């Protein structure tokens, strides 16, 4: 019997700490597959952020540092400047990257730091109990926007990829989703590209992945995937916002 599907080598046989139906697990697996397929594991240093993915340094079989909330791009900068030949990636959620860590991500992009950023956007603070994030969409109910996000009170959701795409140092900026197998495959390609950009020494690369949060959205896992498609994608359109010519195709 041929085994068609197995755990990527860069993913350790540890239990995920994510809620049932959460798509973080898929994204993390894709990162591990990309590291395996590009043969980067031995020279990779990962930086974990704060949020639902806070314990992901237990899962990747690579050297890892744990950064304070929002600071992963700065920690990764320190690593990459000391070890320019290493592969450095960070894995941040939207609370971490788009709220408390806005300055760090913008300036890492502005400096063109040669790092790969996996940015998981589920439009909410997950781990701390479903509070409103900068990415929470208008009308969305959270524990801190119980009447629905109102533009006159809480302002507008932040489109991080579009913003970063205006920065010359950000050479690869892409938004994908994992709400169905077709998009999972596209996300995998985008993540691989984001690593290839770093390997080519071209600059800062980020993949924003739309992800579901059934627990805090109060939806079943399937309805949550539908919500990504029907509510999130219209506000957060998928696609590549910047691509260096070398990595097109």
């Amino acid at each position, binding site marked *: 019997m041929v085994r068609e599907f197995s755990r990527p080598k860069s993913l350790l046989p540890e239990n995920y700490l994510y809620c049932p139906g959460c798509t973080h697990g898929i994204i993390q697996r894709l990162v591990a597959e990309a590291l395996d397929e590009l043969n980067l594991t031995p020279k*990779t240093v990962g930086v974990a952020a704060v949020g639902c993915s806070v314990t992901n340094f237990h899962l990747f079989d690579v050297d890892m540092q*744990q950064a304070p909330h929002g600071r992963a791009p*700065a920690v990764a900068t*320190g690593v990459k400047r000391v070890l320019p030949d290493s592969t450095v990636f960070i894995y941040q959620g939207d609370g971490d990257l788009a709220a408390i860590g806005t300055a*760090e991500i913008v300036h890492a992009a502005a400096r063109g730091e040669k790092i790969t950023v996996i940015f998981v956007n589920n439009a909410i603070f997950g781990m701390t109990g479903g509070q409103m994030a900068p990415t929470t969409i208008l009308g969305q109910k959270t524990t801190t926007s119980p009447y629905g996000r109102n533009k006159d009170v809480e302002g507008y959701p932040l489109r991080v990829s579009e913003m970063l795409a205006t920065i010359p140092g950000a050479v690869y900026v892409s938004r994908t989703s994992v709400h169905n197998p077709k998009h999972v495959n596209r996300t995998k390609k985008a993540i691989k590209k984001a690593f290839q950009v770093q390997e080519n020494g071209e600059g800062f690369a980020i993949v924003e992945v739309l992800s579901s949060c059934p627990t805090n959205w109060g939806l079943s896992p399937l309805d949550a995937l539908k919500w990504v498609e029907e509510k999130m994608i219209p506000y957060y359109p998928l696609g590549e916002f910047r691509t260096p010519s070398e990595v097109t195709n």
Partner: protein
Amino acid sequence: MPEKAFMKGNEALAEAAIRAGCRYFFGYPITPQSEIPHYMAKHLPRYGGVYLQSESEVAAINMVHGASGAGARVLTSSSGPGISLKSEGISFLAGAELPAVIANIMRGGPGLGNTQPSQADYHQATRGGGHGDYKTIVLAPYSVQEVVDLTYKAFHLADNYRTPVIILGDGFLGQMMEPVELPQMIEPEDLPSKPWATVGKGRRTRNIVTSLCLPPEENDALNRKLQKKYNLISEKETLVETYLLEDADYIIAAFGITARIALAAVDLARKEGIKAGLVRPITLWPFPEKELAKSAENAKGILTVELNMGQMVDDVRLAVSGKAPVKFYGVTGGLFPTPKDILTEIKKLEVAVNG
């Protein structure tokens, strides 16, 4: 032949760091420490190092986290308000047991305060500054030569104990020029390897650098491990200098630039027949409690002099533990006491003690 130079305190600090094998500097401009980044920006590239001006103090200390975790000797520098911002990162460095050297060239506070010399960050430095149970080694130089010697030593202490080390200077020390002897250049490749560093796992088991410790027992164990390390540092690394202490009736306790002024005050007092002496803590943490306690045994009174409203005096009182009366004299705002001012305070103490 030792290499001699005539240098500003801030530049001497930067040069000593380079000679200690530091090739990475991350920082943000703030007065009165700016000559440190200026010097690093000019000189580090010549040694194949990296000077990087960060977008914020917060980013700078986290770049230090990354670089230190990757095994490098690394420096950042700032002044009061910037150190407040770095405090989150310093707590993370302590928790993850990462070596780093952080210079605080103190200015007036609180808040924006002013850019004049001060010693008002004593409490912040000696109590850790950030959240959680941790300490940083705090070195307080009182001359440009000592800025060089203690900076050089700071990198060794940081690596040896895997802990952040603070160099607590002030605007006077940073800005004044003195002749110095410079230590030998250490090449980073000659330093002992750091098997715990995150450099890419290669064929070994992966390394993890983190301060996250979720299970209660593990978090408790980490805290106990840190306390054990701090106890060892207290036992082995406490530094203090004394002057004319043997027969002293009145003891001045002062650190950094204030101790320099207090030295002259001791001589003035002696000329007038008052038996004065000086205790100068060089490590503010660990604090030289034993030396203070011992000196208090035969003293009639202790005067603590600081460029703040009374901070180290708390540690002096704890150490002396009622064995002698402890008085405080301090000025802020960039004002400083003359030796004569200190002598006047000694005389006041003498009157208070003798009635």
